[in-house]
């Protein structure tokens, strides 16, 4: 739609004017070329900056981690796969679970797993402390993740009363009021806390093993974790049960059993004895 009138106007006006519409085909072609160029640029940049495939197979491991990798490649690789990437249908990837998770699972004997079932059971550990540390170091260096603080006593300065309240709010739903554990659905369960060490409880809260939720440092601050550990270790485990034999602390179910097995049985024998003396 150019006309003579246009030519008479100034250059500026002509520049501001929309250029003559190109055909639809040319416009499409231009867009495709620009897209391909952008993609090539991004892909090229990625190839330049991304680590090479060689680097993934041989990460720079420290000495302990290398020892851990050796152990891993013998005992864990069947289910967790090469480089702990996991095997479909057998074991999850361990990238990012952190040393805390390894420490909990291995030191409590849950890993290596005895068999595939709803949940791992506690059993005597297969690896000693040194080996557990090496495995933990390996997994930590592979993918990072939460780490349990140093030391065996993680309940220093723990406030038992505060810990008790936190325990009742956060833990007793599954582990029960006495820490004896409880059932979850389909064969899963919350285990008894009585054999657990400070480090294992801490690691469990950090890593959320099995069906347990994660209580990261944002949910429970480290000093609150110390309070909870203090309550479990000092009150639940060392409470002397002022009322006598605690019947397993299973609540009213064993109390009901006791009244029949002890009370009613004793008194039925007493009535047999009394009625027999006639």
């Amino acid at each position, binding site marked *: 739609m150019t006309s003579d009138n246009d030519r008479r106007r100034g250059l500026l006006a002509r520049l501001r004017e929309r250029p003559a519409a190109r055909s639809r085909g040319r416009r499409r072609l231009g867009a495709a070329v620009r897209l391909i160029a952008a993609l090539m640029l991004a892909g090229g940049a990625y190839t330049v900056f991304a680590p090479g495939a060689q680097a993934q197979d041989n990460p720079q491991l420290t000495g302990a981690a290398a020892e851990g990798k050796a152990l891993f490649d013998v005992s864990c690789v069947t289910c967790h796969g090469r480089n702990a990437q996991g095997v479909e249908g057998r074991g999850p990837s361990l990238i990012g679970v952190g040393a805390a998770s390894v420490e909990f699972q291995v030191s409590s004997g849950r890993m290596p797993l005895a068999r595939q079932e*709803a949940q791992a059971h506690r059993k005597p550990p297969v690896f000693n402390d040194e080996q557990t540390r090496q495995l933990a170091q390996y997994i930590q260096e592979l993918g990072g993740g939460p780490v349990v603080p140093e030391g065996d006593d993680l309940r220093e300065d723990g406030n*038992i*009363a505060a810990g*008790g309240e936190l325990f*009742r*709010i956060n833990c*007793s*739903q*599954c*582990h*029960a*009021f*006495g820490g*004896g*554990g*409880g*059932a*979850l*659905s*389909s*064969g899963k*369960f*919350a285990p008894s806390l009585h054999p657990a060490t400070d480090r294992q409880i801490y690691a469990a809260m950090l890593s959320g093993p099995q069906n347990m939720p994660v209580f990261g440092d944002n949910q429970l601050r480290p000093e609150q974790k110390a309070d909870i550990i203090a*309550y479990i270790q000092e*009150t*639940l485990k060392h*409470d002397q*049960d*002022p*009322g*006598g*034999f*605690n*019947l*397993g*602390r*299973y*609540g*009213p*179910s*064993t*109390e*009901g*059993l*006791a*009244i*029949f097995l*002890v*009370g*009613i049985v*004793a*008194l*039925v024998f*007493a*009535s047999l004895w*009394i*009625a*027999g*003396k*006639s």
Partner: protein
Amino acid sequence: MKRRKFDLAATPGKAAVGVDDRFAVATPLRKLLNKVFPDHWSFLLGEIALFSFVVLLLTGVFLTFFFEPAMTEVVYDGSYAPLQGTPMSAAYASSLDISFDVRGGLVMRQMHHWAALLFMAAIVVHMLRVFFTGAFRKPRETNWIIGSLLFWVGFLAGFTGYSLPDDGLSGTGLRIASAIMLSIPVIGSWVTSSVFGGEFPGTIIISRFFIAHVLLIPGLLVALISVHLGLVFKQKHTQWPGPGRTNNNVVGERMFPRYALKQGGFFMVVFGVIALMGGLFQINPIWLFGPYEAWVVSAASQPDWYVMFLDGSTRLMPAWEIPIPIGDGYVIPPLFWPTVVLPGILVGLSTMYPFLEARHLKDRKSHNLLERPRDAPARTAVGAMAVSFYIVLTLSGANDVIADKFQISLNAMTWAGRIGLLVVPPLAYYVTYRLCLGLQQHDREVLAHGVETGIIRRMPDGRFVEVHQPLSASNGHADGHGQLDYVGWVVPKKMNRLGALGPAIRGFFYPIEKPVEAPVSPGHPPVEARPEREEIGSGESRR
């Protein structure tokens, strides 16, 4: 002045005469003291409930001295360190004080709780005895109804008591109770807000439950127990059939002195067992449950055993909601059926059973003689059915504990309960019925053929036969069998019951009773001690 001689031996008599002169009690007392009670161990089961009720009253009075039934918030500063500084209700704080700071408080609290469990257990066991022996039949239907009501009133007493300490467990129970009340169609929300004084938990429920638990319900229990015992007095106790016992008499011991002494002794035994349990077995450690907070629910939060069947029925009930499109829409929640309808049916069926059975059997006679369970197979089988129904529900009420401790899937436990609830009772009916018939048949067999002696005799023609000891002299039957009728009581089935092997030796550690010297009538020769017997052997000595 001559001193009057004080005759000690005559004092009680004189005092009694003095009392009788003033109150004229000799005649009614004589009747009372001479009242005869039949003697059988199973008649003492109800007394266990009665005596544990007495213990409940005694320990309960002690506890009220120290319990503060208020929900005002206080900060605990008692001697249980793990709760110090924790805000809680005054009720919970005073329960903790009873447990830790009142001298003897914990043992009293535990005795009270064990006595409550025992009270309910003894009621149930006594009820089973009454049911399986047919003691509820005419004329005692009223007492059966009162007994069943005693169970339900005891149930309420137990539940209100369970709620009083206001710990995590009792609060969880109360929350469930409020949910049950809410599930009642139409009136649910009104009932709940009237009971709790508004929304759950409110601030009034502990004081309300307290007055119900220490005054209203015990009053009702005392009233029902008095009527129950009064009716036993009035209608006289049932007895087993046996020599000299008929439908129209009572054979047994006089109230005084033997029966009264035995009962006194039995009270001491019941008290002792409760005290032992209170001192040895920890029950309801409220300090571990912590104060009740709506967001705190522990695993293994169960009610006491006699409520557990309702917990079980709730766990087994599928989540079937019934929407009713009236007005804004209305829903009958699934909780309504297992916790309101089911107990309603159970109350109705259990109280009305005597009339149902009499109607079914067209039986309008009075029965003062008991029936052995085997002699009424249908009733025994129905009872077994009811018991198995109750047991499946009760086990399901604890199914999370069972699943966890026996490492079974909780889902499997739930399904086992659902299927078991439908399958086990009919199975129990069938098995019990067959067992009863088998036992009946064996009784008749022994009456007809005699007791098995274990002696095998070889006949001249080479046959072997077992020698039976007939129970009665032959009366002309060719095979040497006498004819005895079944009288509804134990048929001797072992040789020593017939005197062939001498009586079993009594006493826990050493024989305490010599064989009774039989009174010798002049016409009979004196009874000689039985000759020493030797084991029958081959004749060869091993030495």
